[in-house]
Structure formats: structure tokens, C-alpha cells
């Protein structure tokens, strides 16, 4: 019985050590690789690119397992051990050397690219292999700040899918954008990073280009003049386009776009309804009578309010229209006219048909056309969807003041805009990071894990074979003792 116990005990310990050392081989390596993946993954730069680290571990393990199966064909137990250990060593060391050389080459090539343009922005390989975790996370905060300021997300959204007039936008994967048939962003399109960057850079690039070509000139005034010129020129491409069926189908009588904004006819209908309701309401009548009295409290008001009220009352019940209203106003001031009113109305109620080209796309000066496009998308479209990308500039006491951007809604008042240099710097850094970090950093991660734990893995495989041999030896002893009746 004592002999049996001794053999059983040795067999048990051999089995325990065999498993323990096998565990510190690939299972432990895989766990370290997984930890590395978790540390690297996440965020806008790395995304899930570090998943490859775990896939590498699984493939390496699978290769060694196949080698172990092949090793079983060997008669020599020591030969099996040596073969399996050698294959593990080759897999581990080979991967380490490959990752090291490839990652180093990538970093060096990038630092040398474009005559060393990125040498200051991309750390040396030696520095990177130490601080790559930090570098991968460094951009996250400024990028998140950018997304928060402009109320966008990294990838775009297109609310409800269809445009207001029922047309179907087309999604462009490359641009991450939903385009309407006229080439503008879809009605419900909310910018992703790519589109926001495109709009912002187009805006600043156009301004810079215009400034270079016309030093001292104001691009906004030039744009306004160009638009007015083509509007007033009956032979301009824009004027000709307005006569086409395509345009008339949208903006002509009962056009597809006219149901979605306040047209002159509709404004007159609204004013007519207002006049009818107001003229039939005693309190409003009394209030109108009191307007001159209240006006007396406002200093500096030199309008004959009695006459205004009288004229207004006369028109209220006889189909009030914008023209009639402006006739009344014109008697007292020329500061407000129909154009003023339409500019105001258009700010909040203009619908750009997705099937017609906008006026700015007919501008001959491409710099101005690009600038107008960026302003339309960044300000007008952004203003509709609650993601204003570009601030308006106002000069107050010689100082340029910028309006708020981002989320300006009935309950939110937006954020202060980022400066042009901040934005350019952010875009440049992020785009540069995307060029190499997701590709190179996982390899550096594999390299570092293998440097630290690769040898342990090889050792674990080798020693587990050693204990397997001891276990088998004890089994053989057990068999022999049993056959000889030594166990009874």
C-alpha cells in the first residue's frame, strides 16, 4: 500500500505541476495580452484596433497547439518536448522581432515623411514604446471638447432618413455624409467629425485664399455683392437656372418646397388672419389706442404713433398684407422695408429644396462659392439642426467678437467657439494620429508583452512537458506494479 501511495502522490504532484506550468505558458500570456488590449482600446483614436492583440495571442497559441499535436507523432518524449519548446520560441521570438522591426520602421518612415514635417509631432520609436499608452489617450480630451462645443458626435447621424420633401438622401461612406440630390447635406443630417472638419476648413481656407488674392478686402461683402449681382443679372447662370423646370417644380406655384417655409403669399395670408382676429378683438383695439400713450414713455422715439395706429386700424379688417404694412411703416421710417422683413423671415423660415441648386453654387469665383457653401452648411444648416459650426463675427469698439456656436436651441445658448488655430491644430494632430496609432500601437503592445512574458511562456511550455514525462513515468510504474501484483 505504501508503494501505491508513493506512486499516486508523485503522479498527483506531477499532474499539478504540469498543469500549473502549462498555465503560465500561453494562458497567462493571453491574459497579459488581453490586459494590454483593454488598456489600449477605446476612445476616438484607437477604437477597437487593439483587438488584434488578443487575436495574435489566440493564433500563436493555435500554432503551438498544432505543433504539439505534430510532436505526438515523435517516439521520443524528449524530442516532443524540444520540438514544442522550439516552436513556441520561434513563435514568440519571431513575433517579437517582427513587431519591433515593423513598428520601428513605420514610426521612422512617418517622421521622415514630407521632409520631416511630422518629426516634431511624432515621438521617436524609443520614446513611443515607453509612452504609447499616454500618447494614445492624449488626444481624447481635446477631441471630446471639440465634439462637445459643436454638439456633434464622431460619426454622423441623419434624423428620420428622408428629407422634408420626401426625397431620399444618399450616404457616402468615404465622407460619412448623407447628401441630398442637390449635393448639400440632407435636411436631418447632423455632422460627424469628417463633415464638420470639411466645413470648418473650407471656411477658413476660403477666407485665407481670398485675403491672399484681395488683401484688405472683406470676403462677406464680396460674397454679398456677387450674390446680388447674379440675382439682378437676368442673363446670369443663376437667373437662367431659376427659369428651368427643375427650379420651378420646387419654388414655382405649388412647388415641392413652398409648403415648408413662409412664402410671400403665405405671409400675406397669416397677416390677413392676424388682421381679422385683431380687428374683432375689443381688447386689442383698446390696446392699439393706448400705444401712443405707452410710446410717450420711450425716450427718443420720434414717430407719430397716433397716425401709425390709425393707419393700422384701417387696414386690419381689409386684408392686411405685407405690402400694406410696409406702406404704413414707410410713412415714418425707411429703416424697415420688405427686404428687411424678408431677411428676418428667411433667417428662421427658408427651405432649401433638396432638388435644386443653391444660388451660391452658380458663383464664378470658386473661392467665394466654397466660402458660401461652408457658411450655408456651418451656419444655416448647423443652425437648424442645433450644431452651428461657424461663428459670426462682429466688430465692437475695434474688437472682433464671435457669436456662440454648437447647440443653440430654445433651451441651450451654445458655447464659445474654438479659435482657427486650435481647430487646425486639433484636426492635424488627430488625422496624423489616425495614420499610424491604430496600426502601430497594437504591435508595440504585443512587442512589450512578449518582451516581458515571452520567455516565461516558453519556459512554461518546456517545464510542463518535463512534468508530463514524470507523470507518465509514474503511470508506467503503477502499471508495472499492478501487473506484478504489488498493489494488492
Amino acid at each position, binding site marked *: 500500500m505504501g508503494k501505491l501511495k508513493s506512486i499516486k502522490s508523485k503522479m498527483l504532484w506531477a499532474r499539478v505541476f504540469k498543469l500549473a506550468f502549462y498555465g503560465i505558458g500561453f494562458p497567462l500570456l493571453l491574459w497579459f495580452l488581453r490586459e494590454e488590449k483593454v488598456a489600449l482600446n477605446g476612445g476616438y483614436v484607437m477604437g477597437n484596433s487593439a483587438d488584434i492583440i488578443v487575436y495574435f495571442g489566440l493564433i500563436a497559441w493555435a500554432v503551438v497547439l498544432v505543433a504539439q499535436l505534430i510532436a505526438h507523432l515523435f517516439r521520443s518524449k524528449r524530442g516532443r518536448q524540444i520540438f514544442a519548446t522550439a516552436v513556441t520560441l520561434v513563435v514568440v521570438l519571431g513575433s517579437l522581432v517582427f513587431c519591433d522591426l515593423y513598428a520601428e520602421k513605420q514610426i521612422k518612415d512617418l517622421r521622415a515623411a514630407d521632409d520631416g514635417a511630422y518629426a516634431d509631432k511624432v515621438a521617436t520609436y524609443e520614446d513611443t514604446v515607453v509612452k504609447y499608452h499616454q500618447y494614445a489617450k492624449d488626444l481624447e480630451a481635446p477631441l471630446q471638447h471639440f465634439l462637445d462645443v459643436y454638439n456633434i458626435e464622431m460619426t454622423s447621424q441623419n434624423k428620420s432618413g428622408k428629407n422634408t420633401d420626401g426625397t431620399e438622401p444618399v450616404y457616402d461612406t468615404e465622407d460619412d455624409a448623407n447628401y441630398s440630390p442637390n449635393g448639400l447635406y440632407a435636411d436631418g443630417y447632423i455632422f460627424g467629425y469628417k463633415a464638420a472638419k470639411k466645413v470648418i476648413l473650407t471656411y477658413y481656407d476660403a477666407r485665407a485664399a481670398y485675403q491672399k488674392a484681395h488683401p484688405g478686402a472683406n470676403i462677406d461683402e464680396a460674397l454679398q455683392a456677387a450674390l446680388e449681382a447674379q440675382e439682378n443679372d437676368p442673363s446670369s447662370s443663376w437667373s437662367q437656372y431659376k427659369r428651368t423646370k427643375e427650379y420651378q417644380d420646387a419654388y414655382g406655384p405649388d412647388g415641392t418646397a413652398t409648403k415648408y417655409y413662409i412664402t410671400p403669399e403665405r405671409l400675406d395670408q397669416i397677416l390677413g388672419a392676424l388682421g381679422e382676429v385683431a380687428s374683432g*378683438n375689443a381688447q386689442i383695439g383698446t390696446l392699439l389706442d393706448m400705444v401712443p400713450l405707452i410710446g410717450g414713455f420711450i425716450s427718443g422715439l420720434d414717430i407719430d404713433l397716433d397716425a401709425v395706429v390709425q393707419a393700422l386700424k384701417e387696414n386690419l379688417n381689409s386684408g392686411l398684407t405685407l405690402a400694406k404694412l410696409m406702406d404704413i411703416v414707410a410713412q415714418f421710417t425707411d429703416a424697415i422695408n420688405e427686404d428687411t422683413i424678408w431677411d428676418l423671415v428667411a433667417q428662421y423660415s427658408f427651405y432649401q429644396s433638396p432638388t435644386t441648386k443653391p444660388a451660391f453654387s452658380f458663383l464664378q469665383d470658386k473661392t467665394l462659392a466654397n466660402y458660401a457653401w461652408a457658411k450655408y452648411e456651418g451656419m444655416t444648416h448647423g443652425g437648424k439642426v442645433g450644431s452651428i459650426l461657424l461663428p459670426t463675427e462682429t466688430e465692437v469698439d475695434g474688437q472682433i467678437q464671435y457669436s456662440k456656436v454648437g447647440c443653440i436651441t*430654445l433651451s441651450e445658448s451654445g458655447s464659445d467657439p474654438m479659435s482657427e488655430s486650435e481647430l487646425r491644430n486639433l484636426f492635424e494632430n488627430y488625422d496624423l494620429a489616425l495614420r499610424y496609432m491604430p496600426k502601430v500601437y497594437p504591435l508595440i503592445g504585443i512587442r512589450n508583452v512578449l518582451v516581458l512574458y515571452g520567455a516565461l511562456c516558453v519556459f512554461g511550455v518546456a517545464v510542463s512537458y518535463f512534468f508530463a514525462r514524470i507523470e507518465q513515468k509514474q503511470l508506467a510504474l503503477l502499471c508495472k506494479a499492478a501487473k506484478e501484483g504489488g498493489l494488492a
Partner: protein
Amino acid sequence: MKTFLKILLFVVSMPLMLVLVFLESKYLIDTAGSYGIFVWGGVLVAALVTVVCTLTYVITAAQAHKAKTIKKVRVGTAAMVIVSLFFTVGVWRIIDAVLPDIFENATDHTITFDMIREDYNHRADVHMNLLNTFIRENYANGTLDEMSLEEYLDEGYANQEVRDLIAQRFTSMDAGGYKTFKANGPWLDLANSSRLTIPTLVHLIINERETEAYPFYLIAERVTYKKDPETGAYYWLDDQGNRVPAKDKNGTNIYTIDDRSDDTLEMVNWTILDMQGGTMNISLEGLLSGLGDISGILGTVQSLVGNMIEGIENALAEFIARPEVAGSYIFVDLDLDKLQVNLISTTEERGVLGYQNMAWFNSNHLLLLITSLFPARNIMYVFGAVGVLCSLCIGAIRESQFRKRKGLKADGEEAPAKSEGEGNAIPVTPAPVEEKSDLTPYMRTYAEAHQVYRSHLNKDQLNK
């Protein structure tokens, strides 16, 4: 004693689980009892599981009693373990995997799985509050007028009149509101995702919508009918005492109604504010801040026009309701003290809730059915383990009874079979391993050693 123990072990597994599920569901059942069977979901599931497990227990008990080998007893134990585990943990793992997406899509993500997983009693409160609010509003506006408010509240969803009213109200808001907005581009989705900009609001108000206006049942005026004894027709008396024939919704004179209110039909073009429900407050402070200190002017305005404000507000509401503008009422309240304009929806006036609440409300019975499953969730997860343990204990007792019945020893494996083919005792003499030529050398060594070892144990056992 052992039989009693077996029954006790069974009772503390599934039947106890059923009792606990019932107790955990009691609040929901008491709160939303008017929804009938729909709030008994969790209890019904637990009852079903208990029935299945009881059947398994009974069948395996009969099998164990007739079993000729201990293997059959063990198969019965395994069946009990598997059944109790699958119908508790297994079923809930499947529900946890499948239900969240289906549920959240069905509610347009307005109610998430996590919101009801643990906080089911709160959801019951929320939905019952919706029902009570709905009943109160419609009682106040005279739509529900056949019983007292308390009786309506007591009967709740069980009352047919209330059920019909909910369905009709929701259909109206859905057809004349939500669907028309959804078919009108991205504006509603933008508003619903915290992007309600001024241009978006303007689009939501002025865009022409293909309104599929749905008759909306609203009491405009309460009148008491009287029956003409000669013709049998009903009539009511107007302010001047003139007889006005009572007419049904199609304008036909009524002869066979009881004494109740007149009904009018209103075609409703629901506004975006109705979709949201409640009141929207717009502060004028920012707008007027450019004018400097205007408190003096405001004070003067208030003293001069204070008593006219209501008339002006009514005029504004009339103006907004004109087809040229929004086509439906939005009530305006000018609050000069707080310097804000309050835009008030018609929801309360018309006895509806905001669209989201109405959508929930219309499917309240289904929502409550799903919600009622959750009191059972944690209990069933826990009783999966309890069931396994109890099944194993019951199995052990059955084995012990089997051995006693067969006169076998209790320890280790069974004693050798009494006759050939009976029992599953391990042969003393090992089969020659060499015959198994399909084994690798390594496996052959293992098999050889294993057989030797087992033979030795049997010999050892027999030698005792």
C-alpha cells in the same frame, strides 16, 4: 422520514419560489389590478415553472421507485436538475438576451429594459398615475360622465368606456399628429433629441402636413335632454327656452338615448406642443436685455393693460388656431412678472397626455404584462440554484432508498451484480488494453493504468 424529507426539499424549491414571486408581485397586482390578467405575468410564469417541475418530480419519483439500476435513479436526478435549472435560469437568460432590443424598439427607446428590470414597482406607479390623470382630466372636461370620479378611478382600465376613450384619443393623436410629423422630414426627431432650434420649431409649426385628421370626441357643452312624450324624440332647451332636437354624431334626431351630455366631434390638427404635452416656458429676459432696465416701462404696461391681457391672450390663441397659421390652438399666457411667455398645449383641455405618454398609455396593458414578469426575475435566478441543490438532495435520498431496497452497500460504487445483466458493476478483470489498437501510446498507458487502478479498488473493496 425520508419521504417527508424529499417532499420538504421539493416544497422549498419551486412551490416556495411561486409563493415568493406572488409576494414580490403583490404591489404591482394591487396597484394595477384593473388591468386584470396583464399584471399576473410573473406569477403565471412562476406557476408554469412550478407545474413543470412538479410533473418532473412526480415522474422521476415513479421511475426511481421502479428502477432496477441506480443509473436510472441518477437519470431522474439529472432530469430534475436540468429541468429546474433550464426553466429558471435558462428561461431568464433567454429573456435577458432577447427582450431588451425588442422592448426598447417597441417603445422607441422611451422605456429601457434597465428601467423596468429592478424598478418595476415604480413603473407600475408611473403607468397607474397616467391612467388616473387621464381619468381625472376627462372627468373634469365632462367626457366621462356616467359614473362618479371615484368609481371611474376604482374601475380604472377595467371600465369599457375608459378603454374605448384611451384607444380613440391615441388614434387621434397618432393619425392627426405623430404620423404627420414623422412623414414631414427630420424636424420631430430633431426636437426629440434635444435639438429644438428656432428654425426646427418654425418648421414644425408652419410646414404643411398631410393631416389625416381623426374625429376627436370632446364634450363642448353639457346639456340635459328631455324626452318628448308624444314623439319619443329627445330635445334640450337653449338659453331662450327654445327646444333644440338632440342629434347624434351624424346629425340624425335621437329617439333612444338616456339622459346624457351632447356629443360633438372635433377634427384635430394636433400641434407640436400637443405632441410634447404640458406647457413650454419661453423667457423674454434675454430678448429684452438689450433694452436696458425696462422694469419701469413694464410696470406702466401692466398697470395699463393688465385687465386686457386675457382678451389679448385669447386673440393670440384664435390667431394661432387659424388654418393659415398652426391650424390648432396653442394657448398663450403672458407672464409679465416673470418676463416669460407660457405656451400651453391643448392636452389638458382635451383630456389627453403628451404623445409619448399616450403611446405608453395605449399599450399600457402590454407594458404592464412585461413589467409584471420582472418581480419573478431575481427570485427565479436564485431558485435556479436552490432547485439544483434540492434536486441533488432528493436524488441522494432516492439513491439511498434504492440501495436499501436492493440491499446494497451505501459507500462507493455498487456491489457486483447479483446476476448477469443486472446492475452496472465494474468487472474485476480488466479488459486487455492491447486490443484497443486505435489508442495512441499515451492514451493506452492512461487507459491501462486506469483499469489496473479500478481493478485494484474493487479487489480491495471485496477483500474488506
